[in-house]
């Protein structure tokens, strides 16, 4: 096996930094990690390997809607996240795989990881989102950016998780 293009420890550092930004609600800073054509998907629980062109997803954002999502979440009128929830993300089992180059021939890698995200709100039960991420990281100039992030929830249905009002 040839040496990976991105060392696992570097991929871990990247994912940990991303998780910290999201846990700290530094959403504008988080946006800077994304490419100009980034996508963010949460597939439906019954079709985790679906395509949003043919399957009804929970979330299937292009970069415009990702930015609109951040704009919305920063607004106190995003009632589902006001008052804001506290979250804590744990990320592990990171694996880096080679993948085909990006649209302009950029180097890309596919990073798999497992996540647990706990969501806390005053007076509410704890919600525990468990699943795995597939991050497509693209080498832009000298730094890695997220071209595509897919958060696949393991639960068979959202059920008591309710909505997905935060960015998983």
């Amino acid at each position, binding site marked *: 096996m040839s040496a990976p293009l991105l060392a696992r420890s570097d991929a871990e550092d990247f994912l940990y930094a991303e998780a910290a930004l999201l846990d700290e609600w530094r959403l504008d800073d988080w946006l800077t990690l994304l490419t100009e054509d980034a996508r963010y998907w949460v*597939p439906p*629980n019954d079709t985790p390997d679906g395509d949003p062109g043919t399957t009804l997803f*929970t979330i*299937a954002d292009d970069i415009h809607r990702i930015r609109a999502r951040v704009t919305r979440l920063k607004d106190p009128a995003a009632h*589902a996240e006001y008052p804001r929830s506290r979250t804590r993300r744990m990320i592990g089992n990171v694996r880096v795989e080679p993948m085909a180059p990006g649209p302009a021939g950029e180097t890309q890698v596919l990073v798999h990881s497992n996540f647990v995200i706990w969501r806390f709100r005053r007076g509410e039960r704890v919600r525990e989102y468990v699943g795995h991420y597939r991050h497509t990281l693209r080498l832009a100039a000298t730094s890695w950016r997220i071209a595509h992030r897919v958060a696949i929830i393991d639960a*068979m249905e959202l059920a008591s998780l309710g909505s997905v009002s935060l960015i998983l």
Partner: protein
Amino acid sequence: MTEQPMVINDPASFDFRVNRAALVDPAVLEEERARIFDLCWIYVGHESEVRAPGDFRTRQICGRPVILCRDDADRVRVFLNSCRHRGAVVCREAEGNATHFTCFYHGWSYDRAGCLDGVPGRSAYPPSFDPAQFPLLEPARVASYRGFVFLCFDPEAMPLETYLAGAREYIDLVIDQSPSGQMEVIRGVQEYDIEANWKLLVENSFDDYHLLTTHSTWLDYLRNAGVEMKRPERGHLLPAHGVGRALGNGHAVVDNVNFRGRPVAKWIPIYGEAARPEIARIREELVARLGEHRAARVADTNRNLVVFPNLVINDGSSVTIRTFHPLAANRMQVRAWALGPVEETPAARAIRLDSFLTFYGPGGFATPDDIEALEMVQAGLATWREMPWSVMTRGMAKEGEQLNTDELHLRAFWLEWQRRMQMAPRRGVEA
């Protein structure tokens, strides 16, 4: 029933109130199960979800496990998902295709028509044992209207078409999106719980009064994307004219002039320039098939329809089928699907699904705030002993047309709810 009236309707003094006990009291829920869910036509699923003989879906309907499937005679069937032997659930998968439904406990198996055709060690049963007496049981009534499959546990119930009353016109409008009159449920279900009474979601599903306040971030999103958002006339809270209508038997609708874009067929900038020709082509087909007037009715209005008691068909930014069942007085299970014409091109299908997600669903820009609103109502209703009444009088003093932001349609639901709660429950259920 409790001693207090649950709905006060006094048009002469413009008074309409709902007793909040109806939303919090577990005893009321028990009455609802007997007087509403066991007596009304209840949505099970869509014929397109079981296309081929042997295709099946399992789901919980009115607290019962059921199988929706298609038999070898190409008929859509609904069975109670429980073995005639000891009662175990016979089909444990969410969906698939099967030649038989076999109970794993003792191995009794049933064919696609529900007939018991396998009993291990049958010779030990007495000679009087007749497998023909033990098919998978069907609900008292099963019927479809334009692909929507309903069941009813009341053998005396009126026919489904009669029951649907004025709701049929609105279902027909949805179906007219399809050149062949065939709509299909698209893959991917949104299934989530809301910690609120199920009737709060009935109200919320066609309460346009809340749009401006609860969904300001969604309206901002549309505005920022270049969608025209001017209010058309005085007295309107929203950017387009809309009315509320009662449709009989507790069904009701808000029927609005579209401003938010429609995959069939009203382009908005959010769809992107590349989508313009596709939307124009769909529009041309509509006009050629239905004429200008009917095409405009289909394409330029959006309608949120409540079929009493627990089916919502929203033909808005996309078409969603949403149904919900109470799990407790303060909790419901919601399931939602997208519906589209079978002949939709891949490009149009992609627009439909993308458009769905801008508003609807647990990850959309609006539904999470609806869920929050309903859960905050339920939390606030803990004060029901001190504040027993909810006000529902918008539009009551008006002559004629009721706006979508009025509450005529909500009152229609609650009046039917009250009427049914005062009727006798199904035989065998204690009053």
